[in-house]
């Protein structure tokens, strides 16, 4: 079972979380072209190794997190809030 160390709640089972998706996508502006949106929505790299992905602590604090996880071993290298302001709060509380 993957265990994710939520910066707010502590280490919890992955069953408390919902998987989001690729955390490295820069979504285009709303008025961007169909082509740019197609790239952002449908094209994904199939990474073997560590990747950044979003997880939602849906049965916990409801924070969206960036999780650095290995697709081979499920090892998790880092977990931080998606929102930059929440990231700062976490940094300051360390």
């Amino acid at each position, binding site marked *: *079972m*993957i*265990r994710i160390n939520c910066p707010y709640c502590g280490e919890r*089972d992955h069953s408390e979380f*919902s998987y*989001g998706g690729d*955390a490295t996508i820069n*979504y*285009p*502006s*709303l*008025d*961007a*072209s*169909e082509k*740019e*949106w*197609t790239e*952002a*929505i*449908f094209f994904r790299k199939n990474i073997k190794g560590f990747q950044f992905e*979003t997880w*939602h602590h*849906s049965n916990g604090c*409801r*924070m*969206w997190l960036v999780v650095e996880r290995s697709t081979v*071993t*499920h090892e998790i290298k880092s977990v931080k*809030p*998606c*929102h*930059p*302001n*929440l990231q700062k709060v976490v940094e300051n509380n360390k």
Partner: protein
Amino acid sequence: MKTRRLDNYGKINRDKILSFSWDKKNYKGFEGDTLASALLANNIGIVGRSFKYHRPRGIFSSGVEESGALVTIGSKDRRDPNVRATTQELYNGLEASGQNAFPNVNFDLAGINNYLGRFFAAGFYYKTFMGIPPLEWGKGTAIWMFFEKFIRKAAGMGSASRLPDPDTYEHAHDFCDLIVVGSGPAGVAAAIEAAEKKLDVILVEQDSLVGGDQLAENNFDNSQIKNQLENLGIKIMTRTTAFGLYDNCVVGLLERVTDHISAPNVNIPRQRFWTIRAKHIIVGAGAIERHIAFNNNDIPGVMTVNASKHYLNRYGVLTGKRIAIATNNDSVYETAQQLSEAGANVTVLDSRTNFEIETNKSFEIRKGYVPYNINGSKKIHSLDVSKSEDINKSETINCDQVLLSGGWSPAVHLLSHRGVRPKWDYSNACFLPSDSKENITMVGSSRGLWNKNDCIASGIAGTTDALNRLGISKTNYFFPKPGGWKNPIQPLYEVKYKKSRSKSFVDYQHDVTTDDVRLAHREGFISVEHLKRYTTLGMANDQGKMGNIIGLSLMAELLNKEIPEVGTTVFRPPYTPVSIGALSGRNVGKHFRPLRVTPMHQWNIDHGAKMIEVGLYQRPWYYPKENETLSDSYIREASTVRKTVGICDITSLGKIAIQGPDSSEFLNRIYSNGFSKLQVGKARYGIMLRDDGIVMDDGTSWRLAENEYFMTTSTGEAAKVMSWLEELLQTRWTNLNVNVTSVSEQWAGVSIAGPKSREVLNNCVDDSLVVTNNNLPFMGVTSTFLKGNIPCRIARISFSGELAFEVYVKSDFANTMMDLLWENAKKYDGCLYGLEALGALRVEKGHVTAAELDGRVTIDDAGLSKMASTKKSYIGSAMRKRGVLKNNDREILVGFFPTNLKETFNAGTIVCEKNNIKGQGIGRITSVTYSPELGHWIGLGFVKGGLDKWKDTNLVGADPVRNKQMNLKVVSPHMIDPNGERMYA
């Protein structure tokens, strides 16, 4: 019948006699016995019949590797098949019976299969029934399906009870620094070392007692170890099997809580499924002794050497009188000596010629001899042996028991669950665990250590490794080298029988013989994984714990390769079988999933509501009056709403508070229609799209104040919409100052609909002016009070197409609100209406719900193009006209009438052109209802090209599931009051 029990042996409690039944006859055993030891003590040799050939089978082992003594325990609703007699503890009143035999294991009519062996070779079923020429063009499957039920009946083992399981099971969780699996010398040493270093330790043992293989030693005192462990604060879990290792040092365990008790307390679960999250795992799971393949090596009376030692020293049962031991390694000699001291006549046949071993010379050792055939069928009469180099030139040894030791296989299963492949060790003829990058350390004989002192040293080294990996210490350590016997093992997996077709078993439980492995090779199934599936080698209860290596060695020989080149199959959880009951725990029946009810749930029931489950929610379905059917009731309710007034519980809708200075901007981005100009005190219906332009959900948002909105979503999509809004705010639009909070549970809501709804509401509010047409126009919102000083929110919103209001109060006031509204609605001959009437009303109006918005529909498909703003960009706006979404033969929302208005149709009906009734047709009906207003059945759904294309065409509705067909025509989805005059009234 003479007992095989010895007076001066064993650690059973002879003061406590237990009676049990075997195949309906009564026997006696002692506290501390297993079913297997009690059967052996009572001289019962045949305990089962084999899977394919129905050969008589006895007890092969004393543990989890058992593949012969699989029996059925209990009866009626507690009948539990395929239980290993070797691990089933005896209790008073235990009922056990043999399986796979008729009428019983001693005389089994299907034993004829033994003589039809050639028809039951590897792959027989598949070859015969998956396609027999000339029928193989797809017809084989049909033949297989015809024969399958007969074959399954002939080939099955025990059968499970068909009655509901009367026992309860539970899930439990725990945490620790270190979990140690196995309480042999290595595991105990590791646990003690860790506890002394202040780690929080759990020690797990599948047996009822701690000690591991030491339980087979004649002078072993288990209580002393137990006390020592407990005094150190170690949590000991006996009768608990660590069946699987998972990511992040999570261990899955099965605790058998009452399987050893005759009349367990009904308040105690039968089994517990544990999830333990540790920081480090030490596995000292031991090693399993292998047998040797040779002709008739399955006759009752064949057993592993170590098993006979267990039966002698732990249970006081001498398993044979004239015992032949066949081996290739040093591990048997201590047992041979003990057996002969206990009174057996023992001969050891050792395949090795050059070795030295110290014994008390109480038994004969024949160097260089191997067994090649057992004579006997239901019991052993004699053993044919030969000099290794001159195979099958025989001598015969008279004996009643043959003990086998073909070497030991470390139990690497748990590590294998983590994807760590074991490595073949030539000098010890076994697979050894490789190192794991995860915090898992193997100790004891599961890392190939054969003597106790090495095992203890490895346990301490294992804990040092754990402490180092956890960053607690930085101490050098080393593990003893694998091995530990004085003389090297000589690989011996099979002794070939040249005389005739042989029955030389590799895997006892599935009757896989050496010939089957060779046949698989001839037919090209040479990969280990194919071999396994083709012959079923290593499948079923024992998962090849004894036979896998023999199968591998045979394949290696056939391929002219070494065992490691052939590979090993990957072990997967569970290590031993886990009952479905334990997996489901308490998540059964009504507890399978949570139940959500609205705050007026009881009020609804008290007022006659029949409930229906919608997702997790219980919602009022209809409110029948005396003798009314569902359809009588909803037709009356819907008509009443159109005529006077009705009240409906809509609390299950999702409700989200949206607050902050950028709330308007936020809503303007997520809804397809404009929200930036919505005034305070007004609500708006809105549609949300997904990024890819498909409709996600619809609902309303009410502007309560400059920076505050109240959003409602559909019942089904409430959680998804909430997560979506949070995702947008936390990941994409992090500069927007908006906060979203789910308030679904905090507000109770009703819809009050119908021409008299304003009058009813008027009587219920404190200030009657607030709901006048001027003060609360269509889509107006007000925060006010119901009588009795109850704060509420009211919006003039209509789903039914009538003049209607949604009223929300804090959940605590739900019943008071219902009482108040209902008392006043009754004055106008109003009604309570449920989901069925709500559906009828909305279908008449062409309003879409989840039945239509199924994740494939665009805003244009749903006929809601006017809801897509052209003046702004929003989520999904770039993509909603992409590619196929702009095709002009998209399925568009329409209404349906039956051509003959007396006919009915059902949701799911496929809409076809008149002379082309096939496939997916040109559309589908998604919702249907009887329309009280129109007086006939109507439907909503989709057709390619929409209303414009099919307006005056006679179409056909095909309903193959119900074997029904009807003529129908396409109409506008707005089937009544298309201009909305009633809503605006």
